[in-house]
């Protein structure tokens, strides 16, 4: 027969301090667990969202990032006549040859040494349509032939002179900020966009770094890749945009995840030790009670289950508390250098329901593991001795 759960709940209330301390310990572990994975998750999501699986990114053969790539005008013109390019509403191809550079910008308010490497992307007018998530939040698009730039949403909070109407200075020139755009939380929101023809002469001369176009047939990627890479006039690598950005997040995303798991597993061991102590003390102080239960005819199995449940209950309280602590960090913006592209990206912590569930499960595991040996001792208690 099962011992009712209310027995455990009442027992826990009998020793509130000890229960609470143990639960709080577990709560902290769960909070760190959720928080760190939310960081890794947010970083990955920002980059994964950057790419669209309908877009194709073309780089010079062997280049592992836009920064190290280079495509001359002739290559761009050959690419522009590819039959795989979708046509926009204006009848022109959804095709954007782009200039991609990284410039140092001093962070807002910090000391003069604190610089971030910011992506400056020179686009063609079609780029706004090629990237379907881009939305201009304030201002208007930069006009062709003018020294005007549009700034990603996450830039404005972190750098001076990035507001609409202000003037940003880089590459030895002044640039009027004429708009601010959002991009669904993606890495584009950490970039500065302007016209490619404006950026070419001030940065790296008459060459593009990459070409991005929308596929006419989303299923036709393999076909497009084959024909373009086989074209003898071109030496290019053709990437699906979504895969490319997912790969860019691989290195740091994995480091963050490993770090999260390492730190939390060490913390978890500490918390489990705490749970073991608490449960052994509980079993020891309640031995007469346990003996009575056994005498009444409850199976040792039931006693074991009951004490495991009690330990799990403490952990559950801890898990819920930890989740409560961790939830407010959702959406908090942080930034770091993505070493795969040598540029800084700002992203939000992302606490997902799955992550919260994982955190609570993690807490339960700590509770069950910590409770097992004490519960076994309870189940094996010699009745006569305990009653005496």
């Amino acid at each position, binding site marked *: 027969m099962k011992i009712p759960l209310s027995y455990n709940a009442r027992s826990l209330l009998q020793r509130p301090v*000890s229960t609470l301390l143990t639960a709080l*310990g577990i709560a902290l572990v769960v909070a760190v667990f959720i928080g760190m994975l939310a960081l890794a998750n947010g970083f990955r999501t920002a980059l994964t969202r950057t790419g669209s699986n309908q877009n194709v990114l073309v780089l010079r053969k062997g280049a592992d990032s836009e920064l*190290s790539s280079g495509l001359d005008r002739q290559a761009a013109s050959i690419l522009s006549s590819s039959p795989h390019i979708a046509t926009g509403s204006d009848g022109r191809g959804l095709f954007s040859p782009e200039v991609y550079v990284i410039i140092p910008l001093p962070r807002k308010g910090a000391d003069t*040494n604190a610089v971030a490497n910011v992506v400056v992307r020179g686009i063609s007018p079609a780029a706004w349509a090629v990237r379907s998530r881009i939305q201009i939040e304030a201002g208007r698009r930069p006009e062709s032939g003018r020294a005007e730039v549009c700034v990603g949403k996450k830039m404005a909070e972190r750098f001076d002179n990035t507001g609409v109407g202000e003037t940003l200075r880089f590459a030895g020139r002044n640039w009027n900020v004429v708009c601010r755009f959002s991009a669904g939380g993606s890495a584009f929101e950490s970039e500065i966009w302007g016209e490619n023809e404006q950026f070419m002469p001030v940065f790296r001369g008459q060459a593009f770094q990459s070409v991005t176009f929308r596929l006419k047939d989303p299923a036709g990627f393999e076909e497009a890749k084959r024909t373009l890479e086989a074209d003898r006039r071109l030496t290019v690598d053709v990437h699906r945009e979504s895969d490319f950005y997912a790969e860019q997040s691989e290195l740091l995303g994995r480091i963050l995840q490993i770090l999260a798991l390492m*730190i939390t597993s060490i913390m978890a061991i500490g*918390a489990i030790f705490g749970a073991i102590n*608490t449960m052994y003390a509980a079993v020891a102080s309640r031995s007469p009670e346990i003996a009575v239960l056994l005498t009444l005819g409850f199976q040792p199995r039931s006693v074991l289950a009951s004490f495991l449940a009690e330990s799990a209950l403490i952990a559950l309280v801890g898990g819920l508390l930890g989740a409560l602590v961790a939830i407010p960090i959702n959406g908090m913006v942080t930034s*770091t250098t993505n070493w795969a592209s040598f540029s800084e990206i700002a992203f939000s912590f992302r606490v997902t329901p799955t992550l919260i569930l994982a955190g609570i499960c993690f807490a339960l595991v700590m509770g069950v593991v910590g409770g097992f040996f004490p519960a076994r001792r309870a189940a094996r208690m010699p009745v006569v001795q305990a009653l005496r």
Partner: protein
Amino acid sequence: MKFFPLVLANLGRHKRRTILTIASVALALFLFASLRTVVTTIDRAAQFGSARRLVTINATGLVFPLPLSYGNRLQAMKGISGVTWANWFGGRYGDNKRFFAQFAVDPTSYLAMYPEISLPEDQKQAFIRERSSAIVGRRLLDVFGWKLGQNVTIQGTIFPGDWTFTIRGVYTPTDAVINDDMMLFHHAYLEERIGRPGIAGWYVLEIEDANNAAGIAKAVDDQFRNSTAPTKTGTEQAFNASFATMWGNVSLLMGTIGMAVVFAILLVTANAMMMSARERTGEVAVLKTIGFKDRTLFGLVMLEAGIITVTGAVIGLGGAKLLYKASNFNAAGFLPGFDVTGNTLLLGAAVALLLMLASGLVPAFRAARLPVVQALRTVE
């Protein structure tokens, strides 16, 4: 101290509990030391730099090259006693699972500029003589199992193609901050293969007098202000410091986690101490009855807490120090010179002391203030 055996006996009563609590403290301080060392390692890299070395980069940004012709003009400037230049190569080796940095450098002037990169004289000469040779850090040799004289092929990402270098030397940095997993090869070889565009990624200048750093930096930038590639010159330390800031707010992140770890373990220790104290209420009353002073009982509980936290701290902090030392850990090249500093150890000891106070004070006060009659009445 005559009560020491009594405290030990108390600790030995619940051996399991004592050991688990000590282990929790040890784990917490191990984590604390590890997290803090990430911060101190980055800080140390940010502070590294000889006062006599300046770095000149393109004013537009580090990723833009400078003309190779600047070398001679810099060399001719007053107050500058040495000039060298380098280029980031950005190659991939094998499956690219283990990243390492490659630099194209001017061998003679670069090794003269950085005495911290030390290698045997014969290897140095062999490297300088052979255009397609390279030197690598000791760690790379261990990671990939390379040997002296071996040919290694790198795939260029910025400079396309396969690049084969013969390893002619192995260096060991005399300062741990300098990465021991770089590959250095001839800048002239790079120039030759990419069609002599005449570019250098950045220049490093040695100045005669460290006090003139600011003036010389300004003179250099003034000299190139109206040329095609204006420069930005600063001390090597400022250059490294700006690199370190690229990590973003690591210290806040590590600090927050460190706090959470310490606090979580505080709860575990405090709980253990309170449980022990509660079980001994009767005993304490007996001790008081036979004449133990309140102060003594207070001390006994604190001593017990102290032994637990100090033992844990010694294991945790010592373990961290030894483990990272023995495994020569450097986070796959990201954190060269990863070593738990004395400062971190001291801070860890302070944390242990704090743990002792926080976990011991409540039970100790309770023991000291225990009303004897009442306590004895409740003894079962």
